[in-house]
């Protein structure tokens, strides 16, 4: 998720602290707290599965690209950097095989669908 979860949580913590000020207009406080609550809910959803999903996705994309390798650094920041590199390479590969290699194309689409399902946010409007 972008912006990154830790950065948003730090900012949200500051916002919650500022909202403790009793002189704040109630409507502004309600708006800030409502949105903060929603962000905390998204962060909570992402917490448990985030590393697992990125490892799975990176593994699947490496396979499509014919790359060897694995994720040794399991920090989300490191996994995300590698994920971005692999997804950029996947875009290039997909553009290259479109209309030329139906089997590879289908395999890429299957992974893109699977990746979207892995990243599914509860209550998604679509």
């Amino acid at each position, binding site marked *: 998720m972008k912006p990154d979860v830790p950065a948003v949580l730090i900012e*949200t913590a500051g916002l919650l602290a500022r909202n403790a000020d009793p002189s704040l207009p109630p409507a502004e406080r309600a*708006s*800030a707290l409502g949105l903060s609550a929603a962000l905390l809910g998204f962060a909570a959803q992402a917490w448990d599965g985030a590393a697992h999903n990125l490892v799975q996705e990176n593994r699947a994309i490496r396979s499509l690209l014919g790359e060897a390798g694995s994720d040794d650094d399991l920090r989300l920041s490191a996994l995300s950097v590698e994920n971005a590199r692999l*997804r950029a390479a996947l875009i290039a590969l997909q553009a290259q095989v479109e209309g030329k290699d139906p089997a590879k194309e289908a395999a890429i689409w299957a992974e893109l669908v699977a990746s979207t399902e892995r990243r599914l946010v509860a*209550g998604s*409007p*679509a």
Partner: protein
Amino acid sequence: MSSTLEPRLAAYIAGRMPEASEVAVDSLGRISGGASRETYRFRLTWRDAAGTPRERKLILRRDPPASLIDTERRIEFEAYRAFHGSAVPVPEMLWLEEADAALDHPFFVAEEIAGHQASPGLLWAEPYAGCHQHLAERKWTILGEIAKADPLALGLDKVMEPVTADACWKRELVYWEGVLDEDEAEPLPIIRAAIRWLRANPPPPAQKVGVVHGDYRTGNFLFDTKGEIHGVLDWEMAHLGDPLEDLGWSFNPVWSFGRVLAGGLIPQDEAVAIWERSSGLKADPAALQWWTLFNCVKGQAIWVSSARAWIDGGNREPIMAYPPWALQNAQDRAALKVMGRL
């Protein structure tokens, strides 16, 4: 923040109402939402030339330090003004200020259309659950009226960039692809595949070059319990273009709110029929599908821009982090659905 704005806003308005005395602003409060503009409601009081006390409920829309979408507030202001008093209900625009001096950022002041709701979340329960059919009839009839309007007669050709009928699709696609190139914080394979498909399968030229609202969806108009629409809001992305663009945005699956129906209200074919009756235009299915997929790209570009504004530190309001977190995955899912992949 609100209390310091009140006297400055009053001073500005007093300068625009030379016949008035005792001009004052109170009850200024920020309205939640508004990722591209800060929106406040307030009460203006004054004495007219005869000394009679007057009051009016108004809206202040002010540019934030960094926005979800970069838009020209003059275009938004003039779009509202063009449709005021027409079959497209909009609030009356009063003053536009494009300099920073008065309130630190450009802003405009408009009439408040009070007593109605805009939040889609209210629609799925009483007392609004029974109004969907009528609301949908009004929603796509009004969108048809926007499509039917003559931008030249409205004077909008003077503030909106011109475009030819055969160039509408390309101009929009190039613009929003550019936003993605500039703002994306991570590669987006599904949206990039959608862009390649859109470029390889362009739609036919627009039937007419019309006014495109640019963000016409459930959530951007004020409704009541009977399903009547009292004000179409958020014209900040208004431009000249193919009227099918607006129809496609209204069918972007993220605006179905998980209810499958168009806008969460009625089946899409019924909405198309209403729009065709109202606009006098045809919604060619292939062209409409192009514009619906295009709007998945545009939507993703907007969520990505919001994330970028937050990441770069220009705007750390929670409303800027919310759209990318809530909608980026949904927008990918929507694109997959429109492409028949999900």
